[in-house]
């Protein structure tokens, strides 16, 4: 959390994260380019650059995509998520080198503009095998550019988290475009089985982890609810909620995080205003609900970030009858104070 926009709000963990990205990317490029030069001395420098950067960017995209579901399956992977935007921007830069070199190599210095060439040199849009796969890569790079350009919190704030998140879900469109770009492009020439196997493993990992995370989340969110009374719905026993932790609920389409702390229970919207992070997987630290993704904080009784911060989330009325917790799923406007339910007998 920060009051002013900085290019990068550096801290120790971000630096370590970025050094790790740079180190692993460098190792990949050195090994790829070095082996190319040794095993295939006839190859040209342009081909080395195009192939090294394309495969590295695609590998980075796989890592980016599996971080999300990994964190849903275990919060111990959260440090990988914390600075994922830097990984995304790095991936875009590597992919840009591939894209720019490819356009120069294949489309420039001809009888038409390179971008015109990109879209017209292969007119076989109606045949799968002849589909101009380079256009798929172009649109993937365009989406990545939009994502990288708006990756800063300035854009997150000004576009609104909902719009920003929707835009950045474009990474899945990018993945689909790039899988087809690879299948219809280089895999039509490099036909060794290992390439298909590696791509298959990557896709299975991405799809499998997302399905696993979705199943786990579904099980967590769709517990059967109890009876309803005066707009309140009986949701659980208080002992089902760990101290300073939450239970997440999906009632009437409302994504609710029910926190237990200091002998009280409060309910707020489960989605962090920063990046829609799952507040219900967070923890109350120093009296504030702390988002597990980037550490944004909210007071449990009113859903407001502690001053001087200004983020707010919707709140919900809660009451306890004996040890049973009841929630009114009608959301109050963001930042509306609610009287916490006191736990009987505590």
């Amino acid at each position, binding site marked *: 959390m920060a009051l002013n926009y900085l290019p990068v709000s550096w801290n120790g963990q971000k630096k370590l994260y970025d050094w790790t990205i740079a180190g692993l990317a460098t190792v*990949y490029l050195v*090994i790829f380019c070095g082996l190319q030069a040794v095993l295939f001395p*006839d190859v040209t420098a342009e081909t080395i650059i195009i192939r090294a950067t394309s495969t590295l960017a695609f590998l980075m995209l796989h890592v980016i995509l599996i971080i999300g579901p990994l964190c849903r399956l275990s919060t*111990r992977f959260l440090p990988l998520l914390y600075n994922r935007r830097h990984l995304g921007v790095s991936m875009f830069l590597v992919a840009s080198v591939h894209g720019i070199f490819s356009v120069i190599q294949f489309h420039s210095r001809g009888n038409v503009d390179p971008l015109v*060439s990109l879209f017209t040199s292969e007119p076989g849009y109606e045949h799968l095998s002849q589909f101009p796969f380079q256009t798929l890569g172009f649109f993937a790079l365009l989406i990545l550019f939009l994502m990288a350009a708006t990756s800063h919190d300035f854009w997150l704030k000004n576009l609104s988290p909902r719009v920003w998140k929707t835009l950045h879900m474009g990474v899945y469109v990018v993945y689909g475009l790039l899988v087809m770009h690879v299948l219809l492009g*280089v895999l039509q020439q490099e036909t060794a089985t290992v390439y298909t196997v590696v791509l298959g493993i990557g896709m299975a990992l991405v799809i499998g982890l997302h399905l696993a995370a979705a199943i786990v989340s579904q099980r967590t969110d769709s517990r059967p609810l109890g009876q309803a009374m005066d707009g309140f719905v009986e949701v659980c026993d208080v002992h089902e909620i760990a101290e300073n932790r939450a239970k997440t609920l999906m009632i009437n389409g409302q994504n609710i995080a029910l926190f237990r702390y200091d002998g009280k229970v409060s309910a707020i919207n489960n989605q962090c205003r920063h990046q829609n992070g799952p507040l219900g997987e967070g*923890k109350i*630290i120093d009296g504030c609900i702390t988002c597990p993704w980037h*550490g944004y904080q909210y007071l449990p009784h009113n859903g407001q970030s502690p001053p001087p911060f200004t983020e707010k989330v919707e709140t919900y009325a809660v009451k306890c009858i004996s040890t049973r917790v009841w929630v009114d799923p009608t959301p109050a406007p963001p930042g509306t104070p609610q009287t916490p339910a006191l736990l009987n007998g505590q």
Partner: protein
Amino acid sequence: MKPEDDFYIGWQSDAPLSIRKVVWRAVIALALIVPILAGLLVWQQRGFSGAVFEYGTLTTLEGELIRTPVPFLRVPVKQTADNAPLFERVLLIGFNKRGADSTLNAWERKYGPLTNKRLKVRGTLIYHDGKAALELTEEADALIDVSGIKPSSIPPVSSTLGQSSLGIVRLTGEITDPKCMLGVMKPGQGRPHRSCAVRCIAGGIPPLLAVQNRSGQRNYYLVVGPMGEPLNASILINVGRSVELRGRLEQADNWLILYTDSVQPLAQAPLDRSMQVAMCW
């Protein structure tokens, strides 16, 4: 999901030990995957031809200019036992993705007709499998000596000399451009290269049919129309695809020229067939 006891906050100076352990294991796994993957992806490549593009090195050649059906410089390479000269033809190609015609036309505007005249030309050599091309890298300045127009020790020869008919043939292969195929790009054919070959042929570089036999040996055929006219515009749709060409084959010194009257794409690609089968299900 049951939350772990340790809780991670990115803006704190350090992560809890249990979380650090998991993350370091993930990083170590990546550190193992990265070099293995890099090595595997390189190692399994199909490989690249030994074609050569002498980028940055200019070579001067002297020979007779032949403009049809494609521009050549006919260069004497050695003499036979009975002192008859032997020739090799070097295909002339323009700078960038362009044919040589615009440069040759510029020369002729300056010096008059040059066909069958002896010229000294400087450019960048491209060669592979006994075939060579010369990129006129310096364009108008690539013609460095027109004094060779005067009669020399080697008598001028007509463009048909050194050409012999090999009959009607039917050939199957891939159409690409000779500039990339002979060494400017690696690979100079195949799917990823297709759009580049389209650009080169659209720019006036004569199309080349690359035919590969079962043992992997290749032969190359310059492709022109039945009367020797350029086919560049009409053949673009078939560039980079497997095609069958029929026509009259002629040998011109060390080059083969196919005067084709039929360009047929081969049967539907397996990818399209499997897609249609999948959609019928």
